[in-house]
């Protein structure tokens, strides 16, 4: 057996290379009922999360608020790529998000959008990248997933409900819907877990 063929083996670890087994960190969502349903007890960091929703403004930011507050207060950056409306600064501030660590990207072409999302995910300085891409193919999602792994970032892609039956490489897929008492979440896919129950996040009075 030659040295070359030994080095080709997957189970040989070389000092100069990246460690093969990444530890997966999870970031508590701030909603205990949701944490209990997610593998690792929180948002998968270093992976892609898809939020599928029929319309905007049903509580998607309230869902993410605690995690965003935590990341931005820790000095990690939050990148918003093509949000459907203006993230309203006073409301974010109220939710505990450090606005100093927010950056807003308004990008016209889909190619540039994907490029920017990938760059931000990959960079390692961003805590979370929230993206509302115009259109995105599974192959491109896969790229973003890899970029998120590389940069240990929380990648969150908002897409419409139409794609819920499509294959996706994202580690976590949630379906969001407004319900009478709050926000109803269905976990469509969660790496490492199955048989999840739907959850309803109650509306509180300090609305975010």
């Amino acid at each position: 057996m030659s040295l070359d063929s030994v080095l080709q083996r997957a189970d040989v670890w070389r000092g100069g290379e990246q460690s093969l087994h990444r530890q997966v960190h999870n970031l508590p969502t701030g909603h205990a009922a949701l944490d209990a349903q997610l593998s690792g007890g929180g948002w998968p960091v270093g992976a892609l999360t898809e939020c599928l929703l029929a319309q905007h403004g049903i509580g998607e930011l309230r869902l993410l608020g605690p995690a965003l507050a935590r990341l931005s207060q820790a000095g990690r950056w939050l990148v918003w790529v093509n949000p459907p409306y203006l993230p309203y600064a006073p409301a974010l501030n109220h939710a505990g998000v450090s606005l100093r660590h927010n950056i807003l990207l308004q990008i016209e072409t889909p190619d540039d959008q994907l490029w920017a999302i990938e760059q931000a995910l990959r960079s390692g300085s961003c805590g979370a990248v929230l993206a509302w891409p115009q259109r995105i193919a599974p192959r491109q999602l896969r790229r973003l997933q890899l970029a998120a792994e590389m940069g240990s970032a929380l990648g969150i892609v908002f897409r419409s409900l139409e794609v819920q039956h499509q294959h996706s490489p994202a580690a976590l897929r949630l379906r969001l819907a407004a319900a009478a008492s709050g926000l109803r979440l269905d976990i469509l896919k969660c790496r490492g877990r199955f048989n999840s129950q739907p959850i309803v996040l109650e509306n509180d009075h300090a609305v975010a």
Partner: protein
Amino acid sequence: MLWLSLYLPQLARDVFLRGSPQPDTPLAVMENGNGRQWVAACNHAAQHCGIAIGMSSGAVYSLCQQIQVQIRDPAAELEALRQIALWAQQFTSLISLSPPHDVLLEIQGSLMLFGGLATLRQRIEDGLTALGYQAAMAIAPTPLAARWLARAGYPEAVTELEELSRVLRQLPVTVLMQPPAVLKALHGIGVRRIGECLRLPRAELTRRFGKAFLLQFDQALGDHPDPQAPFEAPAHFASRLSLPSEVDNTEALLFAARRLLVELVGFLRGQGCGVQRLQLDLYHRYAAHSHLPIGLVSPSRDAEHLIGLFREHLSRFTLPAPVEAIALRAESLTSLSQHSEDLFTTHSAEHVDWPQLCERLQARLGPEAVRGICPVAEHRPEYAWRYCAPGETDAQAPGLPRPSWLLNEPLALRIVEGRPWFEGPLQLVQGPERIESGWWDGLDVRRDYFIAESTCHARYWIYRELPQARAWYLHGLFG
């Protein structure tokens, strides 16, 4: 020691041919001498047209009208040998050039790493094909013997001196790299093979052909030392490739660029380095050179990754004129091995820091597309925030319930049966909150804000203008 000799008899032709994706276009390389011009090398397509070495230029054009003709460029040939040596540094640290046709690699120390002679040989062969050169290869314990064996096209690797002596004796004397007069004299005395030559008395041979003639046999057989001048690599990479005909499309340019990239990657492997900045120069006949600087996020020496970058840059670049030559330069090399990583870390060494990311985003998207937001101490909702430079310090905002999404412009709502309507009737659930401000700048507002819920339970921030309180507007969404 074990020497691998690369013999490149077609170098005069290959320096032009390797830049073109169509090797089937007839090409002839002409040489000037004695007041006439004659064919020094040509490719198979040209031979197929009836063109042969030594023909005059007139004959060439009469045989084939669409032939591409280049003037032989000995400087480019020497440069090509140097580039091959640079590329081959990934296989061994001891390389020697023997212009005009040979590169010698000492491979004894590399056999273990590359998994034996056959594997190494295969890798070098594949590499040369990727570079676009045709080479004969031979392996022998002495450098001169390796060169002779390569010229004879001897396919087996010779690793032992005893075997070498036996093999060399079988070779024809034409491999000896001697002037034609010497070969003719040998032919005249009935010597065809090296073995026959060695059977002649040494004193007689020396008297007839000189000391050096005998010395070459001693060196080839390992009886006399034959030191080789080691090739020394420059600190930077720069390589130029002339194209056989002018090119105006990206695919053909990429093909040529790939040749240069293979050279670069071999060089980087030899140095244990990666590049972060590259420059691709395009030379035009009737226009100033074009320069394409190419930057990478992190140092790399992955040929496929680099070719992908080239493709992206070239596709966004408009050629001012057809290209007749391309050159690749890499001046700052970064050691790849200096980042040795902890077994348990999750952050890779390729991370860029925040300012760098911001810079890159702004460079491609424009500064107006990359902004931060901060709150402003102001009661009117639309003025309670502003865009700012990314990372600007933040002010604090009052803790009143505010929607997390704000519309750019308030949206007038329909009134159905006396109730505001937005994709359905809206039910007021909280409010009113009166905001009355701004009388000093003429943009004063007097509004009552409510939180309203739609039938599908989405929550909105709506207001009505005072004092009439007739029209309803949507101003925000509780995301």
